[in-house]
């Protein structure tokens, strides 16, 4: 448990980002291509939709990865702040 208030804020934000990443990765949009193939529809418009979907899915997965990276960085910062705070307490208390 964080003792430093800033570290605690970092951990809250990290948790939020990880939750958001989880929701992104669970969205049906990432599986929409499974039922949107040429066996369902075939036309230039359908091709354009599939192409756009592929791009969107790449961006969403990339965004989820970045959210987790940010969360990891926040947690690292929180750990560092907590370590500094613990060292300070030891030095003060002897």
């Amino acid at each position, binding site marked *: 448990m964080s003792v430093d208030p800033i570290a605690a804020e970092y951990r809250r934000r990290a948790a939020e980002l990880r939750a958001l990443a989880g929701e992104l990765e669970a969205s049906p949009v990432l599986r929409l291509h499974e039922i949107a193939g040429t066996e*369902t529809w075939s036309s230039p418009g359908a091709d354009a939709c599939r192409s*756009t979907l592929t791009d969107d899915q790449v961006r969403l997965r990339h965004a989820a990865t970045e959210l987790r990276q940010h969360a990891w960085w926040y947690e690292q910062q929180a750990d560092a702040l907590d370590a500094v705070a613990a060292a300070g307490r030891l030095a003060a208390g002897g």
Partner: protein
Amino acid sequence: MPGVGYDPQRLQALRAATIAAAESLRVLSSEDPAAWEAVLAARTARDHLEQMWLPLIDRIVGSDVMVTWRRAHLGGALAMSRSGDDTLALAVSLMILRAVGDDALRQAFFVDLGGRDTARLFLELGVPDPYGDVEANRALAALARQELAAATRHPGLPAGFAADLVDGMVAAPGELGRDPTGTLRYLFAGAAYSAEFLVAATKASVRAERAAADVRAFDDPYWPSPMVASSLTVDLEADTDPTDLLLQRLGDDAVAWRALLTDPGAAAYLLGERRSDSAGFGRLVAGAELAAAGPDVTADAPAALRHDAAYVASAFVNHVGSRVDLSSAQPEVSASAATILGHHLFAVHHDVLRPLPLTEPGTMRRALDAFGPDSEVDAPLFDSDALAAVSDLAVDTEDGLATMRAALNGYEQSFAAAAATFSTRVEHQDPDDFLAQAIGELGQLEAYLLRHAGHLTEGAARRRDEAIGRWVDGVFAGLSFGTRQLGAPFPVPGLGPEDVKEQWATHEAAAERRFEDAAREWTEHLRFLWFGELHAAGVVAADLPDEVLTADGKLRPWQELDGTQRRIVRDRMEENAWRGPVDVDWQRLSDTIKLGQQELYLDLPPGQ
């Protein structure tokens, strides 16, 4: 799935999944700056699903045109496009049609597609889909329109195709981007269709307007435009409604106008009910004039053509005569009315002599005694009230009045010539009585039209005086026509038509006397007309010197005679009896003419 198409069940499942995916992205949110990129990616993906995927899926679900045009096989040619998609298939098909230029192939394509799916094809190509290739669709539409027009010209399309096409437009689902009005404008604005196709489309357009009459307020447009117009309309210069545009496209094709206006429903609606701007109504009336009295409506034209022309004349008089907005008609409308009545004066004459109310336009085999028993013709029937209204309209302008006057001059001459000739036939026991009756009948027609010139606005004395003044002017104009056509005599010394018109219009006492002088002179004209025709027919054998006769023994035109010769002719005409094989009592003729024209002098409505 090869080529173009879709699986309806899978597409419905895809639609549901797309909605679920969009909803899952809608709830994603975060205020953390580190999440901004993720939130933006989610919003972008959601926009694509809602604005691109769902509209496209709905378009496909709502339309089977992609499937149906695949049915329009072009032999093996279309197989070339099977590896492509729907638009490519259509493009290849149309390009093959154009390149091959085979009439039968082109006809087969559109016959197989049918009118309704052809309508939907153009509707779909015009949907302004921001993610579609609008320019490519417009190019395809232009190609399809060109091929469709070619198919209508040769070898032609089935009789119901044009009606199905218009019906398909009208029945188009009211979804975003569907624009029947704009699509019809696009279709009919820029291609050379056959006249038969245009007539059939016009009839269908009229039927659609009439069918929607119950759900339309009196001032609603007949063809409302949607919020989002078809992308096919961007280059159109005017937003004319489809029916007006179709009428415009009929141009000066008398056969096409006749085909349209012999449809009782279309004629009643267009001529009697439909609101138009002045230009539109002018075009319609000009078309009716072509159909009823155009250059091809001649005495030796095929009987079917003359019958149709007579029907259009009947429809014109009866429907236009029932309009409540006739008082605002343009001068061109008056001129057309005069031309139609002038061309059918035989029928007008018949109805003047025996007026009848009429509920529906029609024609009937009719004869007038003066023309003899062989003169029966397919004549238009006129409702007496409608004929009176259109007669008022016809003489309401200078051009209309001049047209009527010229037509009347020609008719009077032919009537007099026919009666004079017919009176010589041995079966007539009492030829002078026959002639007196014929002259009286002609006098009634003259009086009827003359009275209508002065009968326009009974309640407005000034206006009425002006109208009579114009007719007086027309009498003199008629004399000049007569000089050319009939050899009509008796110019009034020192009295110009403008003088008479102005003086009569200002109601000077002298003007009334001048007007009576003019009417008397016109009576003289009729007398000269009859005298000349009776002389030509040998009915009277007046003691006329050779110098007043032509080489074949006919009376020379009045204006060719010098003063002495005119006095001689006038003296012969003043004799009480015109002697010859038949003794014609001039006093009886004179009295009959005066009786027929007494309405000039008395304030009686026509026919009393």
